[in-house]
């Protein structure tokens, strides 16, 4: 099996772009959530929900991606954003939200609903890390670790042709041992 690993490239493991969920940047967080909850990815007979949605511009060029945690952060009502994010231990944390007790549940809910209508373009992660179609899978592992990302775009001849997920990379790697 290790011998087989010699030949596994990013292009062998990637999901082609047209099969992966994506939306334009002006779509809302709510629409991004729909994309995550109502897509199903079938890879090697396994079905899963996407944890990341790709963001394109009107010319169908890839601009960024949103992860579940980006959406969660984006949903946070303005009223809870009094302190800088890095001062708090987790999103929606009440520890430092001095005014939380003054806020009713309804007010917070209204704030979340309002935030859900904001644009994904405002919260997306820009594309800063990619792998090449011909990159060896170990290089993909390296890039994922270095960037702390579980999904990377795959580039072929200067164009994005697909994405590679950590779950699929992990499956290939475990085949060495199972």
């Amino acid at each position, binding site marked *: 099996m290790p011998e087989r690993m010699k030949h596994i490239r990013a292009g062998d493991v990637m999901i082609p*772009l*047209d*099969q*992966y*969920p*994506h*939306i*334009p*940047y*002006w*779509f809302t967080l709510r*629409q991004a959530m*729909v*994309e995550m909850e*109502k*897509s*199903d990815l079938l890879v090697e007979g396994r079905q899963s929900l996407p944890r990341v949605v790709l963001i*394109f*511009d*009107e*010319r*169908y*060029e*890839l*601009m*960024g991606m949103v992860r579940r945690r980006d959406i969660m952060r984006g949903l946070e009502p303005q009223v809870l954003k009094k302190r800088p994010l890095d001062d708090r231990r987790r999103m929606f944390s009440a520890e430092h939200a001095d005014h939380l007790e003054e806020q009713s549940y309804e007010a917070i809910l209204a704030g979340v609903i309002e935030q859900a209508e904001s*644009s994904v*373009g*405002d919260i*997306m992660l*820009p*594309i800063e890390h*990619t792998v090449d179609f011909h990159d060896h899978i170990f290089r993909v592992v390296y890039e994922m670790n270095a960037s702390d990302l579980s999904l990377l*775009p795959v*580039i*072929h001849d*200067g*164009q*994005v*042709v697909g994405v590679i997920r950590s779950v699929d990379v992990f499956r290939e790697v475990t085949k060495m041992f199972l």
Partner: protein
Amino acid sequence: MVRFRDPRKSSRPKEDSALDAVRSKFAAFLALLERHHQAMTIISDMEEKSQGEYLFDLNYIRTSVAQIRNCVSRLVDIMIELGGARYQILRDRFAEIGARIDDSLPWCRSTGIDRFTLPLAEIGREQACSVGSKNAQMGEMKSKLNLPVPDGFAITAWSCRHFREVNDLNDRISKRLAAVNFLEYDDLVRISGEIQSMINRAPIPDDLAEAIHTAYRELATNNPGARFALRSSALGEDSWFSFAGQYATFLNVQPEKLLECYREILASKFTPKAIYYLLSHSLVEDDLAMGVGLVEMIDARAAGVLYTRNPVNPESTQLQVHAVLGLGKSLVDGRCDPDVFHIDRANMEIVGRTTALKDIRLVMSPDGGTVEESVPDEERTVPCLTDDQARRLAELGVEIETHYNKPQDIEWAIDHDGRIFLLQTRPLKIVSTETPSEPIDVSGFEVLRSGGVTVCPGAAVGYVYPVSSVDDLPGVPDKAILVTRQPFPGLVTVMGRIAAIVTEVGGPATHLGTIAREYRIPTIAGIDEPQTLPRKTPVTVDAIEGAVYAGAHPELVEARQPDYDLFADMDIFRLLEDLLVHVAPLHLVQPADPGFVPENCRTMHDITRYVHQKAIEEMFYGGIRVGDSTQVFHRLKTEVPLTVDMIYLDRELPKSPSRREVKDSEIGSKPMEQFWSGLMSEGWPHKSRPKYQASFPSVLGHKGRESGYSENSFAVISREYMVLSLRMGYHFSTVEALSTSDSNKNYIRFQHKQGGASLPRRIRRVKVISELLSRLGFVHQSKGDFLSASIGHLDGNRMAEILHAVGRLTVMTKQLDMALSTDQIADWYTEEFAKRLGLAAGENPA
């Protein structure tokens, strides 16, 4: 039914020559839009069919091709009317693309005037349209490959047409064919009898008779002592459909019976089995004019069939030679079991052989025709061929396959001097199956028969129904397991409704085998006394293992189900793909691109796109390129990032360019204002890009569209009328509406096409829009990613509500296709938008 009327009549102001010129142009422009709509519908439908989810037949392809040609031809005519002679070049482009389409069509052009006869030595395969496929392939082997093919000549399809026309047969035949129910055998027999008798009573025209006799005399002079066979060579035969054994062939024909036999071959196109084959493949008899070949007959010591691949196991590296003593007809008719040689294609080694017991052989009768005779005892158990002969045949087979670049089914004969002759070659029908890897345990099954040979793989459950002649066929029940000692002519007439075939004699190399594989009916041969199989209880036929089991075993049928890729091996699907290359791809995208010229039109879609763009330019700019703003009539002044140029049918163009801007609150066209208010109320979805500017080109993008992915939109309007061609991103919509005080005249028409995402996502968007329009009361039709919807007879208030809703919907669905990766997401958006438009279940429409 919505009736559309000419909007110009509803709002015609007092006479004005400048306005008249505009209106005159607009009439042509409207006609062009109508044709454009038709062309888009046809192209989208063909693309949709090519996705593999819908079945279609040759008739569909033929009709679609005729429609798109007619439509685009008319588009070109109108363009020339609208823009003048500089668009004449489009006619050349249209003719050239049309010629490429012709090259892809199996039935070619209608049979044109030709010579009555052509020597085989002067024929190549490109003349299949003129002489029929069988003659053309014989000519090809003889003239191009210099292979041993008997001497002979073709009687052309034109001769057949001439015979029919002189005798006024065409209409009479067509009428009878139109009336036949091909699923009723008795009906087939009756109509067949009527048509054949009509043909057999008709005289051969003198000029044709003379031509046939002259060619025959020349052939006989060049081949003294030879005898001749007259064989059918229909135009579609052996190419797109095998028609194996469907038409007549006369062996050892006497000269005085030449014309009579020729006429009988023409009539054989209308035997019950041939009519069934014709109609069950939705072919029209005009598509299959009959060529006939007169060829020197080989007094065969042995003859047979050579398959250059295993027809039920194409992965095998072996080819097969099937051989019988005497003439090969006894083999293909399934009357004699053949010797079979399995030969390795790589080294021509014989790796397997089966030698049959030979009781009879078919030989030429001295008085004409053929007779069966007993095989002498010393030859009964001896192979028909020497190993060298089998290998030589195999080499010829590989040579022919290489020439045609596809597996071949070749008929051959060896004379008493040991010389090999090739009598026919055609594409080999292969059932591309993957034998299921999942093993199934049959040890508990009661075996009724075993040891059969796979003719067509698969399995079936049913009740046994024995037949021995055509007389038994009317009673064959649907889904029957047909059993017979040997194949006989006419079996094809029940192919469409039986579950399996079991025979005692015969094998893969028979005409029955070819046709069973075409109809994909599990078939086995070599089963002892199949007629005695139990009839009162179901049986299961296992055509992969060659066995028959007692009882119904649906799990076996499931396991033996060949993994057909529905269209992978269907010639008809390939044909559609071949044709689409000249119809659907769009190479002319961006009007500002220097390559946006008629010379670059490579498909019907290109011409349609080019004409649509140029018609707009002619209408709005008098032929000046888009971008020269001084030529624009009126321009809509609006907050949304859309450029909309407008022509008023009832308003003069101001002389000063500065006065040509029209605020969107002062459009002055009731329907346009109603639509536009809906569009504006929904709000433009994105006003500015996010701060991250970097972006990566993707394979989903469209080259050439970068600088103008959203082109200008155009409207022709009057106080009560609008037609708006709206380009938003990668899709375009057309909204046409007439809104008067008379609700009977009012209508809205909506069309939508294209998008930037993949075709499945675009189709989902069309479904979302269709559903919402349907809830608004529209009648709609969609083909692929093209949608056409209309509604009429609405009062003024309802027109306003619906136009407003359509305006909102237009914005809501902008580039929505990008997001529609699954049907569930599309369903979610349908309900989401329905709520926003007040169209959710239980709500009153907008």
